[in-house]
């Protein structure tokens, strides 16, 4: 493992499988009466959020607290520039208070990379989403969810996603989730197809390790999981698509479309969902939709990442009790 987690593309297959396996161990902790491990006791982690994201921040915070870390939340609305203080000064100020790791969410693509590589601070940097670049822990929790559902909770240990066909639908152009998922799923051996109107696919996508299609209906019967990305209504004002209704007719997932999926296939969504836009309520509330499960898995994945980056060589979860039972 590297010292920082900036991009899903930085992870090898073995790194990624190790994180997923470790997350399964962490998930077992959640089933215990006391959901807490002493692993990061005495370590301080700051959640440095320059963009509003309550769910991601809470997920990291829950993971940090379950590992017994001391947690500082720093929420700066707007960019470092509009605030007047630079990213560098903010980070150095926090590090001066003795921070071991920085979990950063920033509106500017590359801000976490700069933080990790500019010599500004020594702390480990974990990217919690930067601009339209990367959101690696989201991709990891998505892969975790897929492996559990498609391979199995126990059967999945040590396994990747070889041969699984994953379709990602929506605003690929503005999506860090799409970029991270394409990178990680490819590393894990899955075949990825992106589906979007041509306006929402970036120029240069031809270099990505995936297929691109403009037609959702022909893709659905062939996939093991379909991931619906949030589409912001404001996009239509910039002429990315004509109207909300037309988007939803062509690229939204409703009950009829869901019926075209193979029986075992799951429907995923990173949240927050725009019901009636990319997904209907019927689909969102169905058993096949893993949106809520993904949130729960997010805590396990973030615990695994924090443990592997900061925990050193101590075993993450004590198996003493399991041994006694044997």
């Amino acid at each position, binding site marked *: 493992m590297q010292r920082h987690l900036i991009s899903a593309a930085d992870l090898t297959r073995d790194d990624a499988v190790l994180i997923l396996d470790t997350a399964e161990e962490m998930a077992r902790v959640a089933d215990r009466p006391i959901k807490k491990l002493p692993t990061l006791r005495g370590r301080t982690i700051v959640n440095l959020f320059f963009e509003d994201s309550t769910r991601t921040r809470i997920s990291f915070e829950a993971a940090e607290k379950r590992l017994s870390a001391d947690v500082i939340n720093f929420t700066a609305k707007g960019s470092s520039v509009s605030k007047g203080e630079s990213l560098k000064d903010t980070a150095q100020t926090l590090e001066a208070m003795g921070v071991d790791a920085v979990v950063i969410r920033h509106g500017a693509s590359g801000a976490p990379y700069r933080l990790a590589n500019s010599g500004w601070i020594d702390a480990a940097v974990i990217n919690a989403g930067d601009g339209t670049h990367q959101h690696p822990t989201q991709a990891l929790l998505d892969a975790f969810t897929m492996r559990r559902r498609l391979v199995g909770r126990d059967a999945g240990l040590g396994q990747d996603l070889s041969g699984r066909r994953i379709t990602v639908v929506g605003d690929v152009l503005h999506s860090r989730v799409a970029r991270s998922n394409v990178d990680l799923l490819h590393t894990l051996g899955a075949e990825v197809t992106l589906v979007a109107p041509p306006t929402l696919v970036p*120029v240069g996508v031809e270099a990505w390790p995936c297929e691109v299609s403009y037609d959702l209906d022909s893709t659905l019967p062939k996939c093991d999981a379909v991931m619906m990305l949030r589409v912001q209504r404001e996009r239509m004002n910039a002429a990315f698509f004509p109207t909300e209704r037309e988007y939803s007719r062509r690229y939204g997932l409703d009950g009829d479309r869901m019926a075209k999926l193979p029986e075992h296939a799951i429907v995923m969504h990173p949240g927050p969902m725009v019901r009636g836009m990319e997904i209907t309520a019927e689909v969102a509330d169905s058993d096949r939709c893993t949106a809520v499960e993904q949130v729960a898995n997010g805590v396990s994945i973030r615990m695994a990442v924090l443990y592997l980056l900061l925990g050193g060589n101590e075993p993450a979860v004590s198996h003493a009790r399991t041994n006694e039972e044997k």
Partner: protein
Amino acid sequence: MSKILIRGAKVLGGEPQDVLIDGGTIAEVGTGLSAEGAEVVEADGKVLLPGLVDLHTHLREPGREDSETVLTGTRAAASGGYTAVFAMANTFPVADTAGVVEQVYRLGRDHGYCDVQPIGAVTVGLEGKKLAELGAMHESAAGVTVFSDDGKCVDDAVIMRRALEYVKAFGGVVAQHAQEPRLTEGAQMNEGVVSAELGLGGWPAVAEESIIARDVLLAEHVGSRVHICHLSTAGSVEIVRWAKSRGIDVTAEVTPHHLLLTDEMVRTYNPVYKVNPPLRTERDVLALREALADGTIDIVATDHAPHPHEDKDCEWAAAAMGMVGLETALSVVQATMVDTGLLDWAGVADRMSVKPARIGQATGHGRPVSAGEPANLTLVDTEYRGQVDPAGFASRSRNTPYEGRELPGRVTHTWLRGKATLVDGKLT
């Protein structure tokens, strides 16, 4: 002013000759010239060029003296072998009146490191809406002949047409910063494979090419000449080549950084590589080199754009666009054009002195190295190899993309009308 004998200099890269300067003029060029009464500079096989001329410099004064002043900028220019620079109009206040251009002109003249020829804004406040008093700037002591809203595109086709027509009355030229504004909203880097991966807003080649195509057609229609600033794409080269073949009066410049660097550098997210127009692809770089060699692109211009450290020591999106270039331009041109066999030193003199002086009507610059001509000269140690160290820059700013990079060539001497501004690599 006394006599100076430059002994054994390869004039334009040719056979070693002696050049005798007397006062502000070249008195004699030949072999075995007498050193009597003259200070001798042993050129020892270094290459002697006419003083370089930069058609595209940001001196930042008035308004942003924290990044550069006319004094520090002209010292940087002399250090890089330049004897004349054209100062862009995007200062605070904007150089859109006779008063501002005269101020910049006088500062340059008083400091004496390098002739400063102000460029006037095309439109009031660079806003692209209303023509600035172009005639008044031309009639002023600064004698402005080049007009540009550089930093911003004159995107309104009617305003551009009127500007092209209007400056014909006094032989002026409009230098266009070709950037279609709607296509580049939120643009952060070249649009392509790298921007798709990095998630940075794309600056598509077509945003430059569509404006160049429009403007060469406008220039043809109204019978004016137009100059294209910092051309950066292979497609732009094709359009300019086509326009020239049709007899359209268009000239174009390329920056040193677009001859060397590609958008792959942006993978570091280091804003030192953030520049407008953005670094493009390898294919573009090769097309630009070829175009400069075959004359489709007329000149090299630095687009020297100083920025204070804090404007680059931040995240990419928050950083200012631009790079300093005066002190590294000749080295980059040597690396990309001379050492690659695309251009000889006479060609370098043509692209970095003769032609820019002609486009900007800088009389006394870009002249042949021969008797009777003004002694604006640059002596270059072309055998030198060394790493770029920004700490040694004369510029007030350090935002160079070449820090630590090994580049060939080093300017050792610069003479402005016979007066040394740089001796053995040190400013006088």
